[in-house]
């Protein structure tokens, strides 16, 4: 029969799954960053959205509804048999911000990947995570040929809160990306130790 693989003797391990979001402007290297640490080639999943249809699924006006397909790239890191981390690259275009709400639910933290040549592309993501109280770290992707700026001037330009960490990284380099991920989770840990009310004030 259709499902008739060998009968399993061992029960499935049901890992705890966690997710970290990777946000930033279009072409800033989100998929590259995911690919640098993922154990699988970044996969692409698509969500069909009807802009006119949100937030209520109303069938009136279906004929004029425009549908858009939004692609999200994601990767997976199995930390232990029972602990799996997923990385999701958020859609680069600002107009799909509403998709983030779903992605952001239950996310343990986020990386805002920034390019010093186009810092303004990061504003929307920073603003979003600040408002939601989602722990995030800004990672400046040091592109070859881009002028390097001192961290302090980038912080100033982005108007970051003092507690938000800013790190320099190379999105192609596994070790470098690992350090960014550790920075995000450490920041999440600090916030988790603190009472929730203090975070939202």
């Amino acid at each position, binding site marked *: *029969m*259709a*499902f*008739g*693989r060998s*009968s*399993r003797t061992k029960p*499935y*391990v*049901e*890992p*705890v*799954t*966690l*997710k970290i979001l990777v946000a930033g402007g279009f072409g800033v290297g989100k998929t590259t960053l995911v690919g640098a*640490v993922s154990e699988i080639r970044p*996969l*692409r*999943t*698509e*969500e*069909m959205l009807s802009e006119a249809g949100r937030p209520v*699924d109303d069938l009136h006006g279906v004929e004029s509804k425009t549908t858009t*397909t939004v692609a*999200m790239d*994601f990767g*997976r*890191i199995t*930390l*232990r048999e029972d*602990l799996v*981390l*997923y990385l*999701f690259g958020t859609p680069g275009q600002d107009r799909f911000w509403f998709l983030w709400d*779903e*992605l952001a*639910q*239950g996310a*343990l933290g986020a990386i805002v990947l920034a390019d010093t040549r186009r810092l303004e592309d990061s504003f929307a993501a920073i603003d979003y995570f600040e408002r939601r109280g989602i*722990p995030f770290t800004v990672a400046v992707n040091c592109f070859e040929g881009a002028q390097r700026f001192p961290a302090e001037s980038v912080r100033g330009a982005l108007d970051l809160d003092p507690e938000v960490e800013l790190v320099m990284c190379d999105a192609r380099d596994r070790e470098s990306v*690992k350090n960014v*991920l*550790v920075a995000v*989770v*450490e920041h*999440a*840990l600090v*916030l*988790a*130790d603190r009472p929730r009310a203090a975070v939202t004030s």
Partner: protein
Amino acid sequence: MSDEAERNLPVEGRAPRPHHWFDDEAGPVVRPYAMTRGRTSAATRHRLDLIALVVPEPAAEDPGRDQTLSPEHVEIVERCSEQPQSIAELAAGLDLPVGVVRVLVGDLVEDELVHVTRPVPPAELPDVNILREVINGLRAL
């Protein structure tokens, strides 16, 4: 069989492209809404998270239960039988929109062929101990 005819046969073992006589521009032959029989949301109580894992139940090996299932349902169960998979992985692997996979997995949950793990509830941060384990795990990579 002539060489000519042989050359036109689909190559076995190639990546599965069931609709090889259409190009990509034509889109899928079976439209997503047909696979879900017009439904846009699943019957399950909770919206399935992208990282919710789909785990087969023992009943998934029970013959005779699969009469009402579509090939896509069957493929979801088969993929998860190897190793539980997340909604996102299933969508990517089946090349289907996430919304369609949610509906199909919802059917399988209703039929008690699979269950779905619930990730960390919304608006709650994961446990501090889990965060520590994540940090250790990342450092050890």
